[in-house]
Structures are given as structure tokens and as C-alpha cells.
């Protein structure tokens, strides 16, 4: 089901996610509503356990809400089966994880080109694009290294290259700087910001790192699964 041209890229409508632990019901998210337009650079902030990761998982269709609806690029995720959701992620979503999550048996270049390969991009075009991207993220000369031979920062940059190689409409990043030193974290944020600016890619990243929040254009603060604050960050306040 699609809506008109004014449809935002991402829309969450009264979304709740609850888990049952024994006889207890725990709300990870409660009644969350917000939209993300194309080209936004949004930080989901909040302390641990506030529901940031759950929110990102729901946005990508990796998890299903107990109540409410998630719309991604005009499609109601509840109406899609697992195969269709995987296809949707392949076509429209890039993922960056806190724990890097590269495929250990593939080299940096193979990891970065993985999604392009699944999308059937011809080999030559794929190689050119991925090598340029790896160069851009500072991994030139490390293309054939496997994840185990790369530092944490280098792995995260490979993960970024993989997430953006196919030019997705939406990149979801779950605490992307949490395991990086300050210098690497800033370099990564610069890269994400530039991609956002130059390609119009929408970024939605969870964080509780003030350094990251300073760079966001909009901050959605979660507390106990609810949106506490949803605010635009004035340009002069950005780090």
C-alpha cells in the first residue's frame, strides 16, 4: 500500500513493543509516534534500556510492534512477510551496528560489496564503486583483509561502506561510535554527515554519546520506551 508524494520516508504511528518475561510484561517502547523525512540526520538518544535498539529494529522490520504501525517509504511493514522485509532492507535500508557485525569469512572488499552483489550490480561497476568507497573511508590497501585482521575502527568503516554502497534511502546505525576512540568516532561522524549532505541519505542513529548528539540535526530522546523530547537542533548549536 502506498500513499501520496508527501509521504515521509519513515513513519511510526503509535508503536509499542512489549515483551513477556515469565509472568511480567515489559514495555520496550510505548506509544511512539514520529516521522523522518528524506535527508534528515536524526539521533535517537537515551540511556541504556530506553528502547533505542528496539526502535531501530522496528524501523527496519527486524522486529514487529505489538501495537501500532511502521511505514517505510510508503509501505506498511506489517503487511510484508519475512522474505519481502528482507528484500525491502536489501533495496532501501543500510545498517551499521555497534558490534560492527561483518561477515568473518569475507574480506573487507567482499563485505563492502556484499549488498551490491545481492542486488545484481555488475562486477566491474561493483568493484569500482567499492574500491572508491573503501578509499573514501580510509581503507585503501586493506581491501583483502578479513575482519579479524582489522581494528575496531577499521571494521566499523567497512560496515559503513557496506551500509552506504548501495545508496540506500535510509541508514540505521545502532550506537555506531560506542566502540571507537574519540578520533575514529569523529572521523566516522564526518563521513556520515558528508554522505547525508552529498547524497541526501537519511540517517537515524541511536546514541547516548554527547559528542554524537552534538552533530545531529534532530534529536529524539527516549526514556523508558517513550519519546520524551523530539527537537530540531539549530545549526549554530551543532558541534
Amino acid at each position: 500500500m502506498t500513499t501520496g508524494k508527501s509521504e515521509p520516508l519513515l513513519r511510526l504511528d503509535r508503536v509499542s513493543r512489549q515483551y513477556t518475561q515469565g509472568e511480567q510484561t515489559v514495555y520496550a517502547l510505548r506509544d511512539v509516534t514520529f516521522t523522518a523525512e528524506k535527508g534528515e540526520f536524526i539521533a535517537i538518544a537515551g540511556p541504556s534500556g530506553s528502547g533505542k535498539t528496539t526502535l531501530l529494529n522496528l524501523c527496519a522490520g527486524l522486529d514487529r510492534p505489538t501495537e501500532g504501525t511502521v511505514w517505510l517509504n510508503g509501505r506498511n511493514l506489517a503487511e510484508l512477510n519475512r522474505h519481502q522485509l528482507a528484500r525491502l532492507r536489501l533495496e532501501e535500508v543500510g545498517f551499521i551496528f555497534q558490534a560492527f557485525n561483518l561477515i568473518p569469512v569475507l574480506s573487507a572488499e567482499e563485505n563492502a560489496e556484499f549488498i551490491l552483489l545481492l542486488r545484481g550490480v555488475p562486477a566491474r561497476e561493483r568493484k569500482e564503486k567499492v574500491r572508491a568507497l573503501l578509499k573514501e573511508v580510509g581503507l585503501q590497501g586493506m581491501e583483502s583483509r578479513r575482519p579479524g585482521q582489522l581494528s575496531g575502527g577499521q571494521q566499523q568503516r567497512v560496515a559503513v561502506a557496506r551500509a552506504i554502497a548501495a545508496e540506500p534511502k535510509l541508514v540505521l546505525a545502532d550506537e555506531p561510535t560506542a566502540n571507537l576512540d574519540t578520533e575514529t568516532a569523529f572521523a566516522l561522524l564526518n563521513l556520515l554527515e558528508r554522505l547525508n549532505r552529498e547524497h541526501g541519505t537519511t540517517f537515524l542513529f541511536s546514541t547516548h554519546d554527547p559528542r554524537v548528539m552534538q552533530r545531529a540535526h534532530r534529536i529524539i530522546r527516549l526514556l523508558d520506551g517513550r519519546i520524551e523530547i523530539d527537537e530540531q537542533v539549530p545549526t549554530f548549536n551543532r558541534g
Partner: protein
Amino acid sequence: MQAFQIILILAWRNLWRNKRRTILTAGVVSLGLALLLIFLGIGDGSHQQMIRGAVRLGGAHVAVQAAGYQARGGIERTISASDLARIYSWVQSRRDELGITHVLPRAFASGLVSSADGASGVRVIGLEPEKEKSFSSFHEKLVRGHFLAPGDDTGAVIGEGVARKLEIEPGEKFVLMVQGAHSPEIQSVLLRVSGVMQTGLEDFDQATILITLDTARELFGLDDQVHQVAIMLERQEQSEEAAREGNQVLAGELEVLSWQELMPELRDFIRIDDGGNYVFNAMFFLIISFLVANTLLMSVLERRREFALLDAIGFTPARRFVLVLVEAAWIAFLAVLVGTVLGYAGHLYLHYRGLPLSLFYSSEMAAAGTVIDPVIYSDLAWTRVVGSALIVFFLTFILALLPAWRGATGQDVQLLGQV
């Protein structure tokens, strides 16, 4: 296509993440396949030897007889001279195609032998000595005296048991009495013992005597008739085909039997033995299957986070399912390759060197009317090798279905956040 390429590469590399486990799993399957091929080779080899032994001891790959002779017998059910000519004509025309090597006419009767020291009921076989020597093993079983010679009209080769009952030895005389084929009168002839044979088959040795076909015809009153034309083939596997064709060509007064129809006890023994072997092999592979299934499932469960990652980046459930199947296929391919080489090497060794049964049995063994050779030589058809390899390959594949389903449908998104 590109997606399948990456699946092939991913599966192959995943295999070697835990080398020891992969080698152990593939090794167990290889060993299972190798043993299966060796067991099949020994089983088939022993069966081939039993069939050959039975055929060479008075049997036939294909037997032409008067219609009804196999079921009801009767000395009067003979093959006429004109039918005999038709049989020879058919054999001549199809000799090369059917691989016919020997054609042996025979006459049979039940009779009574007596000497000064005893009497005994016997089965009399009339045969052409020189032709039989070129194929049959009667002459190899002689323990005393010599085999029949052409024109030796008063000679007889008798079983060891007959010699014992009648207390006669080569050179001594005895009387054979039979009823004529076309008259109710008892015919008798005085014969001299040419040789004594010991085949290892007690029933045979206690009640069989061999005489020349000419003597038998005269004694039984057969003129130019016989009871059976035994046809030998290069390959016993062609027996049924030859019999089928013979029945079409020689339809009417004759029946053409394959060795299976001529020697049903032997056929049934082999079937039962094969059945037992199949059950044993199936149980053997069932045990191996649990090991393989467990290994594959463990391998998937250990990579739950990775499957969650693949799901997150758009690797569809169907592709994850195929990924695990391809991993299993790689293991199966390696196992089948190594297992076939090992098994075939074992077969070749046993084909040329043989397996001495003396390792297991102290005395000669007989079963289903044939003596089992003291050394078994493996015999393995390529269809057995290919069939076994395919069974093992697809079995491994089937065992991977459950782990593949787990890999495709696992919901482990929470693991992606773990550092």
C-alpha cells in the same frame, strides 16, 4: 546468479572456519561410504561366485527345456530333434549379441544303482564330456579316477556318497536301472566307475552320477532328444534378457528359464542376503546421519548472530536456507569424493587379492545348492558406486533440511547488539 556465487563462496569458507569439525564430519561420512562400497563389493562378489559355482555344477545361465519340465519334471518331457535344431539356430544367430559362450545338451533321469554291497536312489545326468569340461566344474571335483571321455559308453562318474553306499571305487562295476522315457519297462545297464567326485554339496554327492549323453539317450530311449539345453553367457546379468528373448523366439513346446527361475533357492538366498545387507547398511547410515545432522545443526546454532546479520542486510530466508544446504552439499561432495576413492581402492584390493573366508570359518561352506568359495573376490558394478554415492550425497542433503530451516527462520535480532 551472482547471489548463488556468493552463497557458494560463503558456504565453502564457512566450512573451513572449524576445520577439525568439518574434517571429522566429512571423514565419518567418507568412511561410511567406503565401508558401504566394500560391503557391497564383497556381497555382490560372493553372490556372483555362488551363481557361477552353481551354474558350473550342472546349472545354466539360461536353460531351454520342454514346457512344464521345470514344474513337473518327467523323463518323457523331452526336447524333440526339430526343436533342438530351432534352439541351435537361435543360439547361432544371437551368439554375439547375448554373449553366449557354451551350449551344453543334457538328459536327466531318476534311477537306482546297485552293487554287490548296496543300492541307492540317484539322479542321473547324461552329458557330453568334452563340452562340459570346457565350462563345468565336475571334472575339477574328482577325488579319485578320471572324468568321462567321449565314447566312454560304459563309464560313470559317481558322487562320493554313492561310492560309499555301494562300496565301489574306480574300475569297479555297478548296475544302473531307470524307467524309459516312452515305455513303462525298466531299463538297466552295467557301468564301470570312471571317477569319484566330491563337490562339497552333501545332497549332490550322495545321489548323483554322470554318464555320457549317448549312453543316457540309449538307456532312457530318447533317440536324438534331450531334456535340457544349458546355455552359458559371458555376463550372467544378461540371463533374464536372454531368457525373455528365448521365450519369444522359441514359443510353443519349449520353456526358456533364466538362472533365477532354474535355481530359485539360490535366487531367494541372494535376495534374503541382500535384504539383510541393506538393513545393516541402512542402520549404519542412520547412526552416521545423527552425527551429521547434529554437526550441521550445531554449526548453524553457533552462527545465530551471523544469520541475524544476514537477515538484517537483506539476505532473504530462502537464501539463508540455500546457504546451509550448500554447506551440507560441500561436505557431502568432499565426503563422497574421498569415500568413493577409499571404497573403490578397498574393492580393487579385494577384487585382486580376495578375502579368505578361512579367517572366519574353519570348514568349507555350502548354501542354497552351491559351494561358497573359500576366497571371496569383490565385485562392484559402477552402478553400485554411483548409486551409493548419490544416496550418501542426498542423505546428507536431507539431513541439512532441519538446520537450514533453523538458519532461515531464526529470530535472533537481539544478538546483533551484543559486542
